[in-house]
């Protein structure tokens, strides 16, 4: 298998890790919506934590993306 094809396949495999973040963000906002549905007065208190949680989970998706970019653009042949 030649080097460029291997890089492309590797980058594609690396991005599969973003699935976990998709599930995680869905869970965070699903519980936010349930919480606000049960107790609308608590909306402001819960909203701050929701956005912090969202940013932390999204960071993991971006770690996977960064690895994909490193593979695609960071390795030189013969390294």
């Amino acid at each position, binding site marked *: 298998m030649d080097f460029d094809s291997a890089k492309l396949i590797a980058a594609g495999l690396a991005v599969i890790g973003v699935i976990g973040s998709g599930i995680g963000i869905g869970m965070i906002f699903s519980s936010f919506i349930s919480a606000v549905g049960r107790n609308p007065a608590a909306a402001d208190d819960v909203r701050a934590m929701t*956005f912090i949680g969202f*940013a932390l989970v*999204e960071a993991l998706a*971006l*770690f996977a993306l960064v690895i994909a970019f490193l593979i695609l653009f960071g390795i030189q042949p013969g390294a």
Partner: protein
Amino acid sequence: MASPLEQFEISPIVPIQLGSVDVSFTNSSLWMVITVVVAGGTLAIAAGRGAMVPGRLQSIGELLYEFIAGLIKETIGAEGRKYFPIIFTIFVFVLTGNLLGMVPYSFTFTSHIIVTFAMAIVIFIAVTILGFARHGTHFFAFFVPPGTPLIMYPMIPIEILSYLSRPISLAVRLFANMMAGHILLKVIAGFVAAMGVFGILPLALVVALTGLEIIIAFLQAYVFTILTCLYINDSIKLH
């Protein structure tokens, strides 16, 4: 067809060499200077008049102050007040940097890992030194919370590793969000010209994504700041 990564190229504006070290004034430095001037100038003008009933610009300054003061009171408590200047500076610098990067033809200096890693490692070292200065060697009790059964002690290396990964995650979170956002905008914007009449669809998408990127700019600055506050809280209170 230009690569979407070309927008991140650092190019020297005033080349300066100190021996073998390149300390040129680059486009990244220029935008950092612009950020400081814009943010500092706006806040200086906002605080200038000191009216009892604030006008619009003064309200913005007061809202920003109250926001960060509330953040520090929630996370650290009353003794966090002495850390207000550094937290406020971090928030305003990262926020203004991110937002100025949304201006067309500008340069987002927070989209470079070396910039965000420099900020994160300095915060990490400062917070660790704060922990040691306040608690001495008792700081290592942070990794073994009080009331841990003996069977949990193998968790200590994992705890230490997760503590050491804090600057990396702090840096990569901000850098990757900014870089990925800008690359996405460039790639979709590239389709606008290529699709002719139907280019209206990628154009609508670019408008929506620009709105999303502005929200992400605020959110990432907020998360960077609140995580710094939480790390300071961990060092002061050790649990």
